[in-house]
């Protein structure tokens, strides 16, 4: 691990391609596509969103809609020349655009966007430290309203934790070990797109978020709630056994409390097909997404696990975190491969090889993947709240 060499900062491409999307009346500034961890969005103002690559932190694209707030943001961030180019966008479609932004400003925005992307799937999602760091980054990024909102969120989080008497951290390691030893059913994890935030307890290792057991009469799905979770919200959630290959729901069941923070759903369906998944949904009528999207979402979640583990290693050599990161990048590559995206499978394998000498990497499938793979890996401190996460045993 190269962490001993110190932090490697966020960089951004100075040349982006400017396109005008006529279908939506939107200007797009685009760099290289995002890598195996997906991207994190940051809204600067009405009509402007920045997207950062979650793995290396770079600015990957910007969506700009017509309107004064968006143009003011472009001018503030990239300067008056870039703003003028955006205003001329319909006539300069496809042109390269050189953007110049303060590196520290972009770095703060990148870290804030990536913090937003990981805070809700963290095992310590209810820590007030997320809001503390978000407020700090928002101030550095010049987002005063966002900073004030985070300060209010911080106060609310502390009040919530005081009410729920959960100032101490959940014993993530113990929970993970227990789950890992008892699951014998189809795959399943807590997809944050499908559940209300702040309700179910996420784990470091996505496979450990649900205990899924195949019994004689059906499938038992056990999850853990975060302390103080809204029970009415939980009552709306269901476990579903789905077959993404043909987008069908095989069975559903509501959760019942097991008396503590554990909840269980019993899906009365037997002998699931090998292609089935278990998922937890807030909206039981929600259509089942494709097998490809299931794999993509989980691949990005594996990448988050790997990146979080790598951040823990920064400045502190810990072989177990490195092993965890290497395993997670391996699982990430498998899921991208299953999704049919060989570029991102390759990039995940490259990441694994960087921390796991001797690990095989496939041939680079495309020029852009080769270019992304050739860039410096982002090495940064863990998010404040992440310092409290214990490593799964």
């Amino acid at each position, binding site marked *: 691990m190269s962490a001993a060499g110190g932090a490697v900062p966020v960089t951004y491409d100075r040349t982006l391609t400017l396109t005008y999307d006529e279908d939506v009346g939107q200007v797009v500034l685009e760099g290289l596509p995002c890598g195996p961890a997906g991207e994190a969005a940051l809204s600067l103002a009405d009509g402007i969103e920045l997207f950062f690559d979650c793995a290396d932190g770079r600015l990957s694209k910007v969506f700009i809609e017509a309107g004064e707030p968006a143009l003011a943001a472009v001018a503030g961030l990239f300067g008056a020349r870039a703003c003028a180019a955006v205003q001329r966008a319909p006539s300069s479609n496809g042109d390269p655009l050189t953007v110049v932004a303060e590196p520290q400003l972009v770095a703060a925005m990148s870290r804030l966007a990536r913090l937003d992307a990981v805070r809700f799937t963290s095992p310590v999602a209810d820590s007030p430290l997320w809001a503390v760091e978000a407020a700090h980054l928002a101030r550095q990024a010049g987002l*005063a309203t966002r900073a004030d909102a985070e300060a209010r969120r911080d106060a609310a989080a502390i009040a919530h934790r005081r009410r729920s008497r959960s100032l101490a951290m959940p014993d993530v390691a113990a929970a993970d070990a227990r789950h890992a030893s008892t699951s014998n059913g189809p795959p399943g994890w807590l997809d944050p797109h499908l559940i209300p935030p702040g309700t179910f307890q996420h784990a470091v290792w996505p496979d450990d978020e649900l205990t899924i057991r195949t019994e004689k009469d059906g499938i038992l799905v056990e999850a853990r709630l975060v302390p103080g979770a809204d029970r009415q919200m939980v009552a709306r959630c269901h476990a579903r056994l789905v077959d993404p290959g043909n987008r069908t729901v095989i069975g559903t069941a509501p959760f019942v409390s097991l008396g503590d923070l554990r909840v269980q759903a019993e899906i009365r369906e037997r002998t699931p097909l090998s292609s089935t998944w278990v998922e937890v949904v807030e909206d039981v009528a929600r259509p089942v997404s494709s097998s490809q999207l299931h794999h993509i979402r989980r691949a990005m979640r594996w990448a988050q696990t790997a990146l979080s583990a790598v951040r823990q290693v920064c400045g502190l050599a810990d072989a177990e975190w490195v092993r965890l990161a290497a395993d997670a990048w391996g699982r990430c590559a498998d899921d991208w491969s299953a999704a049919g995206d060989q570029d991102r499978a390759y990039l995940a394998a490259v990441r694994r090889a960087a921390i796991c000498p001797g690990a095989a990497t496939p041939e680079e499938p495309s020029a852009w993947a080769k270019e992304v793979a050739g860039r410096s890996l982002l090495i940064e401190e863990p998010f404040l709240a992440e310092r409290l996460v214990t490593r799964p045993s």
Partner: protein
Amino acid sequence: MGLLDDLAKLVQDPAIRRLAERRARCHELAEDALQETFRAVAQTRNPEAIEDLRAFFCKSLIHAINRQLTLSAPIPAGDIAAIADSRQGHSSSGTSPPASVADEAHRRLLAEAALTRLERDRAKLMAMVPARSGDPRRYRRIILAAAGTILRLLFEGQVTMADWNAVLRSEYPQLWDEPGLAHDALYQRVSRARADIQLLLQVVLPRDLIAS
């Protein structure tokens, strides 16, 4: 015809399906985006406010496709006015300066880590508390609980000697209420209990955080 019927027609419209496949560059992901857009538009709170349903659906569809590799919806920022100031090195907000935020974060970080240790090493810490009463096990449990409460107060701000006494009184009312106990003896008892709590806190916290 209702909104759902109109949306079902749009989802089956060949031009819209071509748009989805061209954008997603994949049949399955295009189908996912069409499903998601149908669901999102059907749940719109004021559908009557949509002037051109087809245009709205297409825009939502492209939005969904553009975000298939995005981990979460962005949190609205609300303003951008201060970015230009930041470019010029000015402070961006009228609220507390970054240094105090960092200090605050550091203090909380330590307090949370200490709470974790207090719970994780419970047995070891209890064994460190002297057996000062007729029921040593109960006394140790009370001291440990009081240490946890003091830590929570530290988490929220400065803790004074009066806070320590208030916590002890609440966790261990018998300490004060024993009939006939002389003032000096009470003072000594409370001091020892505070010292026992302090001992635990010194194990789990850096010394400079223990205000008294």
